[in-house]
């Protein structure tokens, strides 16, 4: 009994942190309708700043804490003013989630650069001696954690209901246009909510830091847990945020104590999925729903730039020649290897592009299917000597089954909730990849995977692998280009534009969404298997949630909604770190910065940007009449 209470207390402490994060999510969501994934990053930033103030400058802990919160608020002000607020008017509503994921990567990368990858902890605020009450020990830090949560809840309530600023914030959340007419600066209020949320996040990080160690990448875990907590409670609801956070913390601690720490995140994710299916709007209803047809057409449509058909043949031919002869020109083997990775990730991206770029569905769990494909094929080959090709097929089959099940249970979900459900799926696979160590080798990975072979023909050298991947890509592109030019492709694009309108035209929306989802899973699974055979090794982080985010980044940077577009994104993000080894520490930072930059300034991606730049040059050099250019644009 004492033990259970003890665990429960631990759960409440953890839950308070999640609740604080969730409060920040709800605050920003209320004003902007956006889930701000950067929240967890501010959490770590605040804690590490406080650590530096305390350890380096010798400030007393409370002063260091205040300093950490203040500096975090300044950083948030800059990021908010330069990226988040402009994003709200430039980026399609649904893509804002990805933009904030970019901000999270930016913060994570910056923290890695400043503080390195080692874990940090703060000293407890009131000494190490735990308090003992009725035989139950509780670290005194617990009082700080609970106290700061309670005071923040009260302060937030007072601010929102009793002050002019709070009423203005709520007015912006109710109706931004009318708020502007009252003379309220909507961008100003948006920025304010962003900064306040960051300060709440920083507080959460600082008070939890004495009992958990934090490092640069703990931020994404916090963001994800906060996102889950807020979804459990009901997005936008403050009591919901607190309840969701506490529930999640308790579930997590009890699962860790009584089941296994390896599966604890799988169980929290299971809890989330159950609630999403049972009550998609969370435990507490906010009474007001925002339209969740994420990814509305405006931005995507503006971004679509295609090459004229004639030019496409010429460029396609040149591209083919280049692709076939590329290995001959390359100086070293490491470039060829990373070219192979570029190709493998591009295979996964072809699928993701069909799901997101064409059908407009969000997926943050694509790497989950890569994991299924990779581990299935790898395990069968290592354990039972199954021929790789059969392993690939088995992995594909399992992925397909998972995709269909996931698609069926998430059929009702749209936008944010769909993003969350796919994220949850990815996290569940992450946790299984670590937990099922008999099959996957656990955290240290699955070793001894043979190279790919068909019959007697093996693909052990990077060069052979290159041509294998090239062949698969060409066949896939050929098939998909055909499919997308048919009724199938048009139906998908109709669904992206407006699901209701598409249904009214007689398009079987659930069927097509299911198909798009299944196709994306098959491609991801195939890519995962190839990845395992290429590396002869597979570890959970190679195909984890970070990878899912990276895939989305690659797609956006390259150019979504165009089959070849993501290849450029995959190439850029894979090749650059190889070419400039010394700079690889900047990778996370650059991912985030690039994502934010492309969303804000080059929404059509590199592909669209190149095509447009080429047209401008051609227009300046040649003397083509304007009319044919317009015509070309329409092809």
């Amino acid at each position, binding site marked *: 009994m004492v033990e259970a209470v003890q665990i429960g207390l631990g759960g409440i402490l953890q839950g308070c942190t999640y609740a604080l994060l969730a409060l920040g999510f709800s605050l920003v969501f209320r004003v902007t309708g956006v889930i701000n994934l950067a929240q967890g990053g501010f959490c770590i930033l605040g804690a590490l700043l406080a650590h530096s103030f305390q350890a380096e400058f010798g400030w007393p802990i409370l002063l260091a804490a205040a300093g950490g919160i203040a500096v975090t608020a300044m950083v948030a002000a800059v990021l908010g003013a330069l990226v988040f607020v402009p994003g709200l008017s430039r980026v399609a509503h649904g893509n804002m989630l990805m933009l904030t994921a970019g901000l999270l990567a930016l913060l994570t990368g910056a923290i890695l650069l400043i503080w390195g990858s080692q874990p940090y902890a703060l000293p407890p605020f009131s000494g190490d001696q735990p308090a003992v009450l009725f035989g139950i020990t509780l670290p005194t830090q617990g009082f700080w954690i609970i106290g700061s949560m309670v005071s923040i809840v009260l302060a937030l309530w007072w601010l929102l209901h009793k002050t002019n600023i709070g*009423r203005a914030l709520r*007015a912006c959340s*109710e109706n931004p246009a009318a708020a502007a*007419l*009252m*003379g*309220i*600066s909507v961008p100003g209020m948006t920025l304010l909510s962003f900064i306040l949320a960051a300060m709440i996040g920083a507080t959460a990080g600082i008070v939890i830091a004495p009992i958990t160690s934090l490092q640069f990448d703990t931020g994404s875990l916090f963001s994800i847990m906060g996102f889950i907590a807020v979804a459990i409670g009901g997005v936008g609801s403050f009591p919901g945020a607190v309840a969701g956070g506490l529930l999640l913390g308790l579930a997590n601690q009890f699962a860790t104590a009584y089941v296994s720490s390896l599966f604890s995140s799988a169980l929290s994710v299971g809890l989330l999925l159950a609630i999403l299916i049972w009550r998609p709007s969370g435990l507490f209803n906010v*009474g*007001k729903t925002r339209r969740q047809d994420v990814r509305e057409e405006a931005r995507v449509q503006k971004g679509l730039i295609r090459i004229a058909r004639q030019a496409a043949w010429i460029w396609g031919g040149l591209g083919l020649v280049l692709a076939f002869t590329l290995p001959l020109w390359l100086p070293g083997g490491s470039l060829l290897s990373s070219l192979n990775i570029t190709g493998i990730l591009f295979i996964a991206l072809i699928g993701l592009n069909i799901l997101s770029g064409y059908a407009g569905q969000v997926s943050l769990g694509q790497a989950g299917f890569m994991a299924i494909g990779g581990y299935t094929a790898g395990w069968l080959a290592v354990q039972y000597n199954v021929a790789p090709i059969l392993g690939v097929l088995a992995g594909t089959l399992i992925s397909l089954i998972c995709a269909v099940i996931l698609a069926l249970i998430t059929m009702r979900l749209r936008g944010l909730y769909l993003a969350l459900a796919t994220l949850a799926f990815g996290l569940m696979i992450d946790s299984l990849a670590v937990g099922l160590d008999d099959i996957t080798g656990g955290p240290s990975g699955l070793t001894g995977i043979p190279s790919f072979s068909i019959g007697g023909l093996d693909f052990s050298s990077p060069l052979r692998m290159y041509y294998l991947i090239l062949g698969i890509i060409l066949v896939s592109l050929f098939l998909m280009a055909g499919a997308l030019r048919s009724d199938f492709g048009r139906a998908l694009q109709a669904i992206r534009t407006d699901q209701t309108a598409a249904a009214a035209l007689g398009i079987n929306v659930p069927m097509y969404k299911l198909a798009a989802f299944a196709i994306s899973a098959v491609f991801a699974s195939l890519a995962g298997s190839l990845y395992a055979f290429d590396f002869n090794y597979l570890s959970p982080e190679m195909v984890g949630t970070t990878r899912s985010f990276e895939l989305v980044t690659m797609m956006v940077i390259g150019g979504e909604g165009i089959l070849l577009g993501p290849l450029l994104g995959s190439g850029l993000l894979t090749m650059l770190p190889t070419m400039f080894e010394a700079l690889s520490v900047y990778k996370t930072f650059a991912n985030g910065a690039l994502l934010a930059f492309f969303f804000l300034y080059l929404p059509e991606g590199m592909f669209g940007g190149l095509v447009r730049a080429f047209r401008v040059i051609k227009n300046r050099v040649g003397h083509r009449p304007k009319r044919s250019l317009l015509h070309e644009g329409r092809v």
Partner: protein
Amino acid sequence: MLNVQKITAGYAAGPVIWDINLVVNPGEIVTLIGANGAGKSTIVKTISGLLRPVSGAITYNGKSIESIATSERVRMGISHVPEGRQVFAGLSVAENLRLGAYVHRHALTEEELQARIKKVCERFPILLNRMDEIVGNFSGGQQQMLAIARGLMANPNLLILDEPSLGLSPLLVSEIFALIKALRDQGLAILLSEQNARSALAISDRGYVIESGRVSISAPAHELINSSEIIDRYLGVGGVTKISSDNKKMAAQIRDLIWSESIET
């Protein structure tokens, strides 16, 4: 007091109003009439600052205002009650009204603010008893009343009303128009954008007819209301002439229906 000179404005896709000239003098009701999509809302949004004009000038009491922020214009006395009411549905009546005086938040003491709420609500007794209720469940008419009351909280000299009669029952429409007239008689200048042209012109001093983003006619309201061209195009009864004599009875019924919406002045 308000002088709009050769304003061209619009949205990302390009301008939707061109070379609009418009004047509102103190203590008069000026009505913009025109079909759906003619550009009436764009004109009023440009005046209140929700949209920046591409070219042209707007002066208010002699000061140039076309490039200053909405909040500054509200402070100067231009209050815009938007189309479709746009009340803050999740907030209480009192909170909505307070936000109406948001730009004066530093200038007003709590007592002054309460006094202003009381004064504004003299015209809207229905709001007085429901101060702490959330307005989301109010009827359309009640929300429209609240929206106007909220607009008055800024203590404006010029009140802009965009489609105040939209979606209201005929009885409520006449109530709203009577209210607008009373506000004018109190000294407020009013710029009204209305599709319900007959009722609007009946209480107006002058009117502008907006067609495809341009002012096609500007004239005193009583001239517009008697012009056969305007009757044909905007006042709805023109259709009667096209109904054949077999359907005279039906035509009379339709005419009655249309006329029942107007009010006696």
